[in-house]
């Protein structure tokens, strides 16, 4: 094993031990436990110890399993989504915007679709901010339009047109049945349909606790921010991405 191959660690290097729990739609009993052991074996646990089995109603059984996983991760293989832009100070950001645009950068934010969670969006936008950092409203050179929650994607695009937005900030917290992906796709579609061909398209920045940042391209958006994002990261990104666009243009 080179230094970069790692296995799970229970209490000894290389022991590969993991904990697993799941429910099978099988009535409790020896058959269910054997099925659970097989399930765990198929997940690569060998040995797999079914250490707890509990009937959940007449038709289901819940299991806790411990076992040794054969999985080896090559750390060199791991793709880390590294921040592709420098973190700037508020001062630098304001300066950049002024010198780049000669006007305030316009941000229109909303939680779209049926999602009514605004705390995350507000954490990024409101002056109050998040994790000790002030939100985008605090930046002199940013103009923030916060549309709140449960905004119809079409309405968001309309407002973005009206405000001549440089960036749309879309928040999505509910992920059940992939609601977040669905809503983000709707925004992308509405933007394609509703944005005037004459002006450059705004950046579409998406955020929420359960997003996978690597999915941006797939969803047709520019950048995805996940759990724990801070306002300064977002502001720094905006400046960086707009600058890049100018270079490209």
């Amino acid at each position: 094993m080179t230094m970069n191959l790692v296995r799970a660690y229970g209490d000894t290097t290389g022991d590969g031990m993991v904990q697993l729990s799941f429910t099978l739609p099988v009535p409790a009993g020896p058959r269910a436990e054997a099925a659970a052991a097989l399930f765990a074996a198929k997940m690569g646990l060998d040995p797999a110890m079914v250490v707890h089995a509990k009937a959940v109603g007449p038709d289901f059984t819940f299991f806790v399993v411990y076992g040794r996983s054969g999985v080896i991760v090559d750390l060199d293989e791991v793709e880390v989504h590294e921040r592709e832009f420098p973190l700037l100070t508020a001062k630098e950001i304001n300066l950049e915007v002024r010198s780049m645009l000669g006007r305030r950068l316009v941000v229109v934010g909303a939680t779209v679709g049926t999602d009514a969670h605004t705390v995350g969006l507000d954490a990024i936008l409101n002056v109050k901010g998040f994790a000790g950092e002030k939100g985008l409203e605090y930046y002199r050179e940013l103009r923030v339009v916060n549309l709140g929650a449960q905004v119809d994607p079409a309405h968001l695009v309309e407002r973005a047109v009206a405000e001549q937005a440089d960036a749309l900030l879309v928040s999505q917290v509910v992920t059940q049945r992939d609601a977040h992906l669905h809503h983000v796709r709707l925004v992308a579609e509405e933007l394609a349909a509703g944005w005037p061909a004459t002006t450059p398209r705004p950046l579409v920045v998406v955020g929420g606790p359960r997003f996978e940042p690597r999915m941006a391209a797939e969803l047709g958006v520019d950048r995805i921010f996940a759990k724990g994002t801070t306002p300064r990261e977002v502001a720094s990104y905006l400046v960086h991405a707009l600058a890049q666009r100018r270079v490209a243009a």
Partner: protein
Amino acid sequence: MTDTVRRNLLRLDQRTVRRARALAERAAAPVIELARTHTTTSVERAVLRLAGLTGADAEGIPWVNRLVDAVAADVGLGHGVALPVWHELRRGGHTDLAALAQKAAAGGVAFAVPEGRERQSAVTASRRAVARGIATIDRNRKTRDRLLRKLGDPPKPWIYLIVATGDIHEDIPQAQAAAREGADVIAVIRSTGQSLLDYVPEGATREGFAGTYATQENFRLMRAALDDVSAELGRYVRLTNYASGLCMPEIATLAGLERLDMMLNDCMYGIIFRDINPRRTFIDQRFSRQIHARAGIVINTGEDNYLTTADAVDAAHTVVVSQLLNERFGLEAGLQDWQLGLGHAFEINPALPEQFRLELAHAQLVRELFPNAPLKYMPPTKHMTGNVFFGYLLDAFFNLAGVMTDQSILLVGMMTEGIVTPFLSDRDLALENVRYVRDACAGLAEDFRPAPDGFVATRARQVLAESVELLERIADDGLFTAIADGTFGVTRRPADGGRGADGVVAHADDYLNPATELLEATA
């Protein structure tokens, strides 16, 4: 649990308590006056539902919406729908409300407001129709009482569990499983977005997001399934849904018609968390509570939600203020103390020193302020991280606070809060958690004696004092101002912003609402 022991641990100053109630009454008065003198599209639709109008058009828009819209288009809603509708029903010789609605939707009817003897006929006919709906509600209440006597009413705290698959046919076995595992109350969470629909969907539904649509048929299916399991278990299992959002009055009505037992129903939740117009909400909540009062339904208010957007220590007093307001609005609408399931929550940051004792102080304060209310205590959500082990522990301390302060309804926390909608196994584990705490610590409340000037009592008194201070401001400046200022849940909602404002209509002089009349006559 001996009540004498439980109810006076904090030595609250009863004069302060009385003053808080008087201030709440003063603050609520102008809002109640508003609600008495206005109606909304949803209130009017509820009247039609009581009169038995069901079903929807091909696009799924209910006939009650079609009919109310048609009336509004012709004569406005200031007179209420009852006069023009029953007038037209007789005049046009329509077989029934459904036929009328269809015709009206097709544009084939011109409504008018009857006067004189015609008015009298419309009044009588509409009263008779609506009375049938109310009779159904009364029958349901009797059925519930009978079942409670026959099957037995579980002791408090009631264990309250949520199902939220989005599919009524997945919800049902999950709810039954939960009941078998010990749930006393089943809540079917609604699909995201339903609260902003200005109509109630129809039929059995399978496509909700993170919740299942509230429909009359879903109500019926679930109540029937729980009746089965109640009989099986020899214990009446209650059913809850949400009389909240733009259709609050109608959903309350459907709850009464389908024998739901409790309903989420808050005087301000829709305003703050759904950006519904404040006036709309205050008018709707009054009607819905009159229905709940009649139906013997326990309401659950939503103060717990404030602590998800505001800090649970800083904003503790806003919870108490809102509870006093909800109490006042509820009593005025005819609810009894035993129907006031005032909400609060265990949402203090667990990293805060003495967090658990602060929670005990808040929970005990609410218990002593509202000794006869079936308080609903909500588990931690905001500080549930993805660490399911720690989450399971935090839920246990929530359960413990509930047991130690004699809460009435415990919403059972899920270790996957913050991650996914609850798994079947989460619910089972959560019940194991509650059962342990409830049984292993059964009498622990007896050993809980906060010192008169100790940490717990001092904190409780401080929260009460802050509540009185805030109520003074509200009584002076008006509740609408307070809401606009972001007092509740640090969310600002101006009085004339928000959704559904166009559904608010002032009563004309001849406004008639046979439902309100009947409900107020007997209240």
